[in-house]
Each structure stands twice: as structure tokens, then as C-alpha cells.
């Protein structure tokens, strides 16, 4: 047992002296846990960063992991720039989080916004620290919410809240090797990073752009025992012959709806593993983990608080009150993160069947395509630009591979085209989409329909599928 967690603000303290057999691996390099416990990857410039509000803009997963260890407990606020952050929003994020120092590496996105007086470059290799790092602060951890349009919301967590799900959790030991398909700059990946640190384990990090076959090969080489990813990650892994090379004891899914088919396939592929799915969001934190092999979660989770996590279902959506939830949003126009009763509204719609809740989808109708979020309205706007189109409805279609894909129902203007011209028209509309939208937002198919339903509110009726 290490020191009481309430006192430990720095991840460095959790490393202890570090076993010489523990490592963080990425595709290009590895770092010994014992080395980072007493060392620095930030060129001995920790004093310059102490007490500041720091933007962590590193690109490499290993550099990010080392910097998180060093900056936690050292800086006043630690804002983690996620992998797909839009450079148009950097300035707004930095202003909102009152950033006054930035940490980068050679893989960081190029941005003039990072040219602050205090800019520290992460260097390859770990140098021994000349002096022990300054006393530990209660660092505010700031994570950005994913993928919707506009400036991302900035969510404040504490280290105690982020690590609360690990208390009394799954048994770990020195033979544990965690792996994740996630990027650790996102909540789901950060959870695994923290589990590796608190659980005295090694960790095999992902690498942007690495083919799944190579990643699986690497996980096998390092003897991964605990592996985490989204259902989409896992579906992709199951389609790779290299999946036979790994034999994890614990298979974890989160971030998307884990349906029965993917749970069953994983159990069949890894008969000796515990296959579990977790529900978490950047705002609400980890709410629960389900290890019984079934989709959804038992209704008693809602009826009785567990580990201090309370849940309720209001108007079909799951709401969570939890010590693991974020503290608040920051930035201009920051809304309240919780309702009047202190619950986070997740916007995830659930349905009760036979004493079990299953997830129905997002209330907002945002479509999740293999982890990428899509607003149907954005695609409709492009389709509607076509001179022969009257209106359109973009909706999700269930996909066994990416969870969902988008398809479009299109109503043509009266008298616009007949018969054989339709195929040509479909091609025209798709061309318009290809010119204006990234690939995942292009409808997989277009159907011409005579009409679309309009709700009483006057808005297009969007059926939740």
C-alpha cells in the first residue's frame, strides 16, 4: 500500500521506487518506470512550469505519459489537448483555461498559439532530476469533450476523482501488462494509463496511424494481460489474423454501446478472459463496470448507489451523481455541469427490459461512427444545397463494423427528374458531399422518398433508431 491517496497529488508518488521490470511502451520507444520516478523528460525545467496553468500539447503517447506524471502535482492546472483538436480552437481553449505555459514535443501540431514565453519541449530519454520536484499542488486536470462542432467544452477533474474508480477494484500485480487501443489524451485512455500507474503495471500505449496488425503484434510481444478499447476498436481487432497472438486475461470495452454480439465474440475468442464493459463519460466519470457478459446493466445499479455512484433515469436518459464526476466546466459561457440535484445528464437514452437497462442511443441524435461524432443536420445542409433537392433526413443505420453509418432520405423538388436520371442524380449528390465533407459523413446510400415526417414543433421528425 502506498501513501493515502488524498495526500498524493502527483502521479510520481504512485510510482514508488518503481520495479525495474515495469515499462511504458509505445511504437517507437520505451521508458522504465523506475527511471521516470526519479527523472525528467522535460529538460530539467520543472521549476519554470511549477504553479502555472499548462497546456499539454504533446503528440506522442509516450511523451504524453511522461509529461502527465511530471506535471501532476506540479502545476496549478493541466489542460490536455486531445488528438483531434481543431487548431482553429486552440486560442479559445488557451484563453478559457488561462494557459500561461505549454509543453510540446516534435509530434505536436504546429500552431502560433503555442508561442508563449514558457514553452517546454519534451525530449527523448529521461534525465536524472538534479533536485526533487517542488511540493505537490492539487492540480486541476482539464479534459476537452470530444468531437462536436464548435469550441469543445472544458471539464475540470481532480486526481482523486479520476482515480476513484480504481479503489478496491480489479486485483492487479506486477505481472499485469495493460494495453489500450485508446489515445491517453481522452478520458477512456487516461483511465487505463492511471490504472497502470496505480496498479504497479506496465502499459503498452497506442500510436497514431499504426496498423492494427502491428499494434496487436506489439501487444503480443509485451505479453499484454489487460486490454481496453471501444467496441469499434475490438471489431477491427477481431477482423485481424494477429488477434490470435494475444491472450489477455481481462478484455474491457467502453466509449460506445457494447452490444451482445461483440461481447459474445470476444468471449469466444478469449475463452479464459473476463470480458467486461464500462460506462463512462468525460463529464460523469466512470459510472459502472459490468462483468457478467451481458449487454446493458442490471436495474439494481439504478435502484441502489454503488461505490458512492448514484444513477437515475429521467425522461429516458441516464443521470449520474458521483464523486468521480468532473467538478465543473470552465471557460466563457460555462454552463453548469450538473442539474439542481447534482446529477450529470449524460444524454444517453436507456430502456428497461427484464430488470436490465440497455442503451438506445444518444438523445441529441448525434450519430457515432466508429467513435467519430456526426450531426445529421450538417450533412443535410450539404445535400440540401443540390438544386433539385427539397429536403433531406440523414439518419444512422446500424453497422456491424463501425456501430453506425449514415444514410440519407431525400425528397426532390416537384417535377424534378424521373426514372433513369435518378442514378445520375444520386451520383451528383454524393459528389457534392464528397467535396464538402470528410469521408465518414458521406451517406453510404441515398433513397428518394415522397415525403418526410414533420413533428408538431415544425421540426423534422427524427426517429431514434
Amino acid at each position: 500500500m502506498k501513501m493515502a491517496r488524498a495526500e498524493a497529488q502527483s502521479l510520481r508518488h504512485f510510482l514508488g521506487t518503481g520495479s525495474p521490470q515495469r515499462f511504458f511502451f509505445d511504437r517507437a520507444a520505451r521508458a522504465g518506470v523506475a527511471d521516470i520516478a526519479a527523472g525528467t523528460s522535460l529538460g530539467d525545467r520543472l521549476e519554470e512550469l511549477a504553479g502555472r496553468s499548462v497546456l499539454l500539447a504533446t503528440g506522442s503517447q509516450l511523451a504524453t505519459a511522461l509529461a502527465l506524471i511530471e506535471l501532476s502535482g506540479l502545476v496549478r492546472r493541466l489542460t490536455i489537448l486531445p488528438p483531434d483538436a481543431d487548431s482553429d480552437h486552440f486560442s479559445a481553449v488557451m484563453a478559457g483555461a488561462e494557459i500561461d505555459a505549454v509543453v510540446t514535443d516534435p509530434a505536436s501540431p504546429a500552431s502560433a498559439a503555442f508561442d508563449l514565453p514558457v514553452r517546454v519541449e519534451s525530449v527523448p530519454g529521461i534525465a536524472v532530476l538534479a533536485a526533487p520536484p517542488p511540493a505537490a499542488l492539487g492540480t486541476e486536470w482539464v479534459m476537452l469533450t470530444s468531437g462536436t462542432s464548435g469550441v469543445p467544452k472544458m471539464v475540470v477533474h481532480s486526481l482523486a476523482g479520476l482515480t476513484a474508480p480504481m479503489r478496491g477494484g480489479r486485483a492487479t500485480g506486477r505481472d499485469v501488462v495493460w494495453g489500450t487501443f485508446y489515445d491517453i489524451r481522452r478520458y477512456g485512455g487516461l483511465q487505463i494509463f492511471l490504472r497502470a500507474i496505480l496498479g504497479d503495471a506496465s502499459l503498452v500505449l497506442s500510436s497514431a496511424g499504426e496498423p492494427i496488425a502491428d499494434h496487436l503484434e506489439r501487444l503480443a510481444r509485451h505479453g499484454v494481460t489487460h486490454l481496453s478499447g471501444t467496441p469499434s476498436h475490438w471489431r477491427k481487432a477481431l477482423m485481424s489474423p494477429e488477434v490470435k497472438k494475444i491472450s489477455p486475461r481481462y478484455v474491457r470495452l467502453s466509449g460506445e454501446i457494447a452490444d451482445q454480439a461483440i461481447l459474445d465474440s470476444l468471449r469466444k475468442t478469449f475463452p479464459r478472459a473476463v470480458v467486461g464493459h464500462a460506462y463512462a463519460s468525460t463529464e460523469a466519470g466512470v459510472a459502472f463496470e459490468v462483468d457478467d457478459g451481458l449487454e446493458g446493466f442490471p436495474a439494481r445499479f439504478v435502484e441502489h448507489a454503488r461505490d458512492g455512484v448514484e444513477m437515475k433515469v429521467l425522461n429516458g436518459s441516464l443521470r449520474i451523481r458521483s464523486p468521480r464526476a468532473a467538478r465543473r466546466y470552465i471557460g466563457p459561457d460555462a454552463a453548469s455541469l450538473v442539474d439542481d440535484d447534482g446529477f450529470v445528464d449524460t444524454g444517453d437514452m436507456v430502456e428497461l427490459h427484464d430488470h436490465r437497462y440497455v442503451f438506445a442511443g444518444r438523445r441529441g441524435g448525434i450519430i457515432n461512427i466508429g467513435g467519430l461524432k456526426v450531426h445529421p443536420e450538417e450533412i443535410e445542409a450539404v445535400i440540401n444545397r443540390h438544386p433539385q433537392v427539397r429536403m433531406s433526413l440523414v439518419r444512422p443505420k446500424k453497422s456491424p463494423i463501425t456501430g453506425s453509418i449514415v444514410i440519407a432520405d431525400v425528397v426532390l423538388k416537384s417535377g424534378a427528374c424521373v426514372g433513369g436520371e435518378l442514378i445520375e442524380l444520386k451520383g451528383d449528390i454524393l459528389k457534392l458531399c464528397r467535396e464538402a465533407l470528410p469521408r465518414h459523413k458521406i451517406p453510404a446510400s441515398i433513397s428518394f422518398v415522397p415525403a418526410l415526417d414533420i413533428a408538431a414543433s415544425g421540426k423534422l421528425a427524427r426517429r431514434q433508431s
Partner: protein
Amino acid sequence: MSVKLTIIGQMAQIAREHGKILAPLRDDLVLLDSGLDSLGFAVLVARLEDRLGIDPFTTSEDAVFPVTLGDFVKVYENGAR
């Protein structure tokens, strides 16, 4: 048109639309090496449902994860019977 030809034709069409280059489409080709990515396969499965009237991946009792192109075609041929 045979199921196999329909699949191959759609793969070529999607590769063109997505700006991808397809590997030679032999039966033993590992799907992940075909040149189409996850999104490409998601679109393929959706289009095949339009053309063949089946989505064997979401309708079958047991989830199937074909590894090669030959496996993939077989899943559709079995589903079409």
C-alpha cells in the same frame, strides 16, 4: 450477377469513391490488407444489403468476423440461400 461479382464490384466502387487502391482480390486476401478500411467495409455492408437484401452480420445468431475475402463472400453466399 453472382454474389461474389456483386461484392467485388462494390469493393472497387467504394475504393474509387474513397480514393483507396485495392489489392488483387483473391480468395485468400486478408480483408484488412485489401485497401478498404473500417469505414469502407461499413459502407460495403450497407450497400450489399441494398443490393442483395441481406446483412448477414447483424441478422445471424452468432456474430461472424471473416478474415479473408473468401470467408466474406461465403458469409453472403450462405446468407443468400
